């Protein structure tokens, strides 16, 4: 079953087209990577799905339910049950790691005992148990990444959206965190929409690659197919 569907979605920003007639279906458990150069509309896809902006035309569906269509938001971001790791991570600096994870659970009315349980489990999965009482500013870049991941996943989202989450890290850490994301995926089995402009990252993470160009999909297919695509078109997409 498709957990996410974009149907002929178009989005303009003050006259400029960011997304044009964009259609995409994501199956449950899939790891989709949206790959493309800066400015091609990748972030716009995620922000439309999250509900921060409405599409000008077309429809967006989550688990079969239309959440936005033709310029209208039908379901607010806070009721879409998605997880997101922002490019700047957006960890709340005045809350501890535990406070960051607990916020969404409280907002969703999860009882205290279950909150503790879920926080403990997810912090174990990202190897951050000892840091529950620490504020984000006192963590390393990699640790902050793990907390941002844990904060999104602790809510059991219907899909996890990640917007160039590793772009600010050095290559070694970048590669290690790719592995960790895949391990988490093996353990929990979430649906992943992962945005990047980096080919290697895309091929490592994705089960399916969506290559974007100027607000539209240029090609969508397996890792193999996208490798062939780049051999044909040349690698200078970025």
């Amino acid at each position, binding site marked *: 079953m498709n957990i996410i569907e974009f149907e002929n979605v178009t989005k303009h920003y003050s006259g400029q087209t960011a997304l044009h007639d964009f259609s995409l279906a994501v199956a449950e458990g899939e790891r989709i990577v949206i790959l493309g150069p800066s400015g091609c509309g990748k972030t716009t896809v995620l922000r439309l799905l*999250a*509900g*921060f902006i409405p599409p000008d035309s077309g429809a967006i569906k989550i688990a079969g339910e239309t959440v936005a269509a033709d310029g209208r938001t039908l379901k*607010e*971001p*806070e*009721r*879409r*049950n*998605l*997880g*997101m790791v*922002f*490019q*700047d991570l*957006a960890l*709340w*600096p*005045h809350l501890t790691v535990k406070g960051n994870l607990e*916020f*969404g659970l409280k*907002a*969703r009315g999860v009882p205290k005992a279950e909150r503790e349980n879920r926080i403990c489990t997810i912090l174990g999965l990202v190897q951050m148990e000892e840091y529950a009482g620490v504020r984000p500013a006192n963590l390393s870049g990699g640790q902050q990444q793990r907390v941002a991941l844990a*904060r999104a996943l602790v*809510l059991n989202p219907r899909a996890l959206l990640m917007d160039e989450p590793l772009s600010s890290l050095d290559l070694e850490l970048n590669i290690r965190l790719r592995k960790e994301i895949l391990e988490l995926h093996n353990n929990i089995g979430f649906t992943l929409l992962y945005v990047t402009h980096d080919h290697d990252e895309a091929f490592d993470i994705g089960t399916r690659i969506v290559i974007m160009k100027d607000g539209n999909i240029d090609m969508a297919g397996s890792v193999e197919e996208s490798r062939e695509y780049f051999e044909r078109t040349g690698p200078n997409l970025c």
Partner: protein
Amino acid sequence: MFITVGLFCFLIVIMPILVLVAQSAHLSAYVEAFGRAEDSLLRSMAYAAAGASLLVLLGFFSGYLIHTRALPFWRGVDSITIFLFALPGTVIGIGLISLWNRPWTNFIYATPAIIILGYLARYTALTSRITVSALGLIPPSMEEAAQIAGAGWPRRMAIIVAPMTKTGLALGWLVGYIFCLRDMGITMMVYPPGHDTLPVRIFTLMANGSPELIAALCVLMISATLLPLTAGGIIFSLRGNH
């Protein structure tokens, strides 16, 4: 150059205060000042504190609206608050009188609530604008992350946005307090009998009070202004040292 500027500042800022302090340098002047204006001093501080608190609240809402442009009339809210701030207090006072001086609104007009209402009408631009600049310092993703985590607007404000702008909100409170405390225009127009504030009392006592009394009252006024400023300064510097 610096000496000239320093001398100039000394002449126009420090000297008048020193003169007031010197003039009132008798315990008897302060005893009399307390006797004749203690009630309005306390009222002044209470009204200013209440006004500042409500100004922070109102300014937060309007500042948030202006910052996020969430509703189409955000620009109108911004212009109106700034316009009201620019108007002389007496004009707002007369407006308030003609609006509220009716038998069925006496529960406001005959109580200090009308003074607070006047403060809100006139000074919201201050806390609103301070909120706008404080909000400008936090990335929009902070609130978006809270939103996607499932939090509605009140929870996002209470737990994420307001705590992250708390320095700005504290600053807004201090500025609001000072402007309410020193307000003359509105207060003089609308204060119900027996509810005058210290600036108004000083003004009325000036007609026949002794210079020592007036000077002592002014020093009290200065202290009431400096009290929260000093407290705020100490808190800020203590937190800065951490």
